[in-house]
């Protein structure tokens, strides 16, 4: 069973159509939750770190929020250049502290 689950696996939006991506985790004891963006053929690029429930971070059209068991990446009025795979990683407070990655959400924004 995956400890970190991202949904949906794929999302197609029209330009300007706002939506949200979800990252949920099953293990208790969150140390940190990370969002990355990955363009085809490139390495993941860091976006946000969240540490505690209620925390929010924003960058341009992206806003990340965190509750006790999940995080949302809200995309407001997306543009085609927002098309990418968005990865979530969770660092748990027990064990080795190595972040566990979800499988990602592939976002395509049509003009």
């Amino acid at each position, binding site marked *: 069973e995956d400890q970190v689950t991202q949904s949906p696996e794929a999302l197609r939006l029209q330009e300007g159509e706002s939506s949200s991506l979800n990252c949920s985790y099953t293990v208790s004891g969150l140390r940190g939750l990370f969002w990355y963006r990955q363009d085809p053929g*490139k390495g993941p690029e*860091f976006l946000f770190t969240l540490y505690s429930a209620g925390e929010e971070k924003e960058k341009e059209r992206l806003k990340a929020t965190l509750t006790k068991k999940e995080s949302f990446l809200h995309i407001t009025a997306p543009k085609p250049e927002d098309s990418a795979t968005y990865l979530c990683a969770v660092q748990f407070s027990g064990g*080795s502290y190595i972040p566990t990655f979800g499988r990602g959400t592939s976002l395509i924004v049509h003009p």
Partner: protein
Amino acid sequence: DAGITQSPRHKVTETGTPVTLRCHQTENHRYMYWYRQDPGHGLRLIHYSYGVKDTDKGEVSDGYSVSRSKTEDFLLTLESATSSQTSVYFCAISEAGETQYFGPGTRLLVL
């Protein structure tokens, strides 16, 4: 952008041959990681290092070894490459073991 380079960027090799991938950083970060990324699996940790000569296994370490003789370099070796090791390999670095910065990736094809 974090100063991370990977070499080679592309490699084609034959089953049974040894392969070494190199990750080089100019950020003086303590932590370095090797991941592989495959369709349907996302990013999976192979090995990581928490200091010079200090390394540990990840979830998919079988068939791989690593070495870190100086802060800036982290080598991943496939002792005898197999077709199942065809993948895209990413190196990542982290200053404090939390937010990670990824390299551009190495595409490896084992025939």
